[in-house]
């Protein structure tokens, strides 16, 4: 293996790949970064058994080959290099790196012990990276964090032609987001359950256009692949039955309230300060007004009133303040619409404007109310 590569190109690709290496590797070779030089250029790969990252860059390849070196060390070295071309070659059990007058020699790790890297599934479609990252972040808040219920720690991706639906739930809330994209084939349909943290972290790091690849067929089965600008990430999928969430979304509601998002968010945060952790915040909607209250009786209590539009019967309902804040925080609209049936049935938060409306299905965030005793 022998090649020459631009310093910035190498440093950026190494930094991106090394980012996904495990800090405490369960086996030593996983702290390694695999360099592969072949006719396509240079590829850098890292793998933590669940997520694999691969960056491809152009390089002048003098001799093809592979080498496994410490990812952290290579990343540190690359940061310190002068702005000159970098020559990398393998020499026995060492990898030599020369850049201007700087020379480094890195120990190689046993490449034969490195686990087989997952194969990239074939491309399903594409969407702008910012749209994708935002959509993922909006549903990731509702995903569960309890590893003993693995299914609920995932984000469900459903592809139906040119519509993609993302959904996540931890049983107390459910977030559903739809967006349109450019599918590889018209009328295709596919679904997968991806670990939420992985999907959110990966989506954030992508730029330009994201290509999404969902498993189909024998090779790369059970994987999701995300590619943008020569950087590819694969993740394993969670297996099992995701809750049938569409039936949880009520088809009609009895009353609707519209509130300005930012003041609402701030008020919830303020009144929940006095309440013990996760004791509910109560919302009472009447014509033109929303009263928020937390705490009661002997404990500290707080209340605050906000302007609100109400269409329908008065309603009093209580929520876990953290969940309510998560739901409001996931919105990107000036106003929020809350749809209710009764105080014991889930409420639905959707984005809207000062003029109201908000029957769209672009983003829906369902919250289970807390039953108030007495």
């Amino acid at each position, binding site marked *: 293996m022998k090649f020459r590569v631009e310093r910035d190109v190498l440093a950026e690709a190494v930094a991106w790949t090394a980012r996904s290496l495990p*800090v*405490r*590797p369960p*086996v*030593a*070779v*996983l*702290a*390694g970064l695999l360099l592969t030089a072949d006719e396509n250029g240079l590829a850098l790969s890292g*793998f933590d*058994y*669940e997520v*694999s990252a691969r960056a491809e860059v152009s390089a002048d390849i003098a001799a093809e080959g592979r080498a496994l070196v*410490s*990812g*952290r*060390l*290579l990343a*540190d*070295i690359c940061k310190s290099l002068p702005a000159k071309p970098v020559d990398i070659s393998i020499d026995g059990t060492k990898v030599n790196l020369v850049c201007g007058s700087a020379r*480094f*020699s*890195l*120990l190689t*790790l046993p490449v*034969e*012990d*490195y*686990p*087989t890297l*997952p*194969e990239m599934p074939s491309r399903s479609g594409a969407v702008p990276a910012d749209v994708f990252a935002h959509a993922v972040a909006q549903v990731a808040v509702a995903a569960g964090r309890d*590893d*003993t219920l*693995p*299914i609920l*720690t995932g984000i469900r991706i459903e592809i139906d032609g040119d519509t993609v639906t993302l959904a996540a739930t931890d049983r107390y809330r459910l977030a559903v987001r739809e967006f349109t994209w450019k599918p590889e084939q018209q009328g295709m349909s596919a679904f997968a359950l991806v*670990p939420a943290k992985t999907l959110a972290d990966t989506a954030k790091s992508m730029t330009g256009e994201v290509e999404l690849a969902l*498993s189909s067929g*024998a*090779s*790369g*089965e*059970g*994987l999701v692949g995300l590619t943008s600008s020569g950087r590819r990430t*694969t993740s*394993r*999928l*969670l*297996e*099992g039955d995701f809750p049938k969430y569409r039936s949880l979304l009520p088809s009609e509601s009895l009353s609707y309230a519209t509130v300005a998002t930012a003041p609402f968010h701030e008020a919830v945060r303020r009144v929940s300060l006095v309440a013990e952790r996760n004791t509910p915040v109560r919302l009472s909607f009447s014509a033109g007004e929303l009263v928020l209250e937390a705490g009661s009786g002997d404990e500290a209590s707080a209340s605050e009133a906000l302007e609100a539009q109400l269409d329908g019967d008065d309603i009093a309902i209580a929520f876990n303040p953290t969940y309510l804040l998560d739901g409001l925080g996931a919105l990107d609209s000036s106003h929020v619409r809350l749809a209710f049936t009764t105080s014991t049935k889930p409420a639905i938060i959707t984005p809207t404007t000062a003029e109201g409306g908000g029957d769209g299905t672009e983003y829906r965030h369902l919250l289970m109310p807390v039953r108030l005793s007495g």
Partner: protein
Amino acid sequence: MSLSGVWTDVVGQASAVDVLASAVAGEPGAMTHAWLITGPPGSGRSVAARAFAAALQCAAGGCGDCRECHTVLGGTHADVEVLSTELLSIGVKETRELVRRAALSPAGGRWQVIVAEDADRLTDQAANALLKAIEEPPPKTVWILCAPAIEDVLPTIRSRCRSIHLVTPSTAAVAAVLVRRDGMDENTARVAALASQGHIGRARRLARDPDARSRRADVLALPRKVGDVGSCLRAAERLIEAVKADVAATAEVTDAAERESLKAALGIGTGAKQPPGAAAALKELEKRQKTRATRSQRDGLDRALVDLVAFYRDVLAVQLGSGVDLVNEAEAPAVQDVATASTPEVTLRRIEAVLACRTALETNAAPLLAVEAMTLGLR
């Protein structure tokens, strides 16, 4: 069937290998999602579990040569998770990660294999946390649990597993492996195989390492060193020291190799400053090695007691003139001495004393006290 590939290391277990290989071959009804491999210490439970895992990941059913076989056997395959606990019990915390792993699709598209080497050490809560994951895993997840005996595993767990029982491999089978794989001469191999009582790893060390042989001889010198109370207490102390030395000698090599490979992987010691997280990773390794040492010492002491039982069984054989092969051929003169100086009744009582010590240690008695009680009983 002839053993080949990954199965060659599963020594003297033809019928178990038959069942596992048919499962790998996909014969109708042969595969299932949860297995329980039982067998006495040294029968190769974890070797069998890893061989099975490798065979499941290998496109050729366990060729032993491909990258998948190599990485499974070497412990780096992405789709084989091995919980080899050095702890005395496996709690809920350790099992949480397993439950999550069981729900993931395999990265290589074949199987997601989870091996729990000490299923007998699962606490009740941990076992409960695993129940659902073992009962209804995703279609490509396979559990392989290991334990000394079926009864050691909670009924709720074992009723969900297909059971595979390993036997203590015959002396001939163990000796054959030492000759074939380690290039030992027939006699050394036979003596080591006999002395190991079917424990392959132990046999290999006795055959290869003269120090291991002399430390074992130290242990077996004990029956002639117990006389007055003072000598019994000294003998007990000496036994514990001998076991410690034996364990430390093996651990030293493994520990250093692990430390070096982790350092290389983390990029420590090549001149650059220590990368973030490296110290924590090294500390974690050290902790793991320490708990492993504690566990190895318990296992080592148990093995020494098994050796002692075998010694007294040899004594009994001589006293009764049964004419069977001695386990301790190298210690024949000592066996003779003790046999002449005592009666079969005394020998039986001494065997009881050693077995009582094993039982006490299993229930976490302080090692020195338990061994002292034993040496006093060996007078």
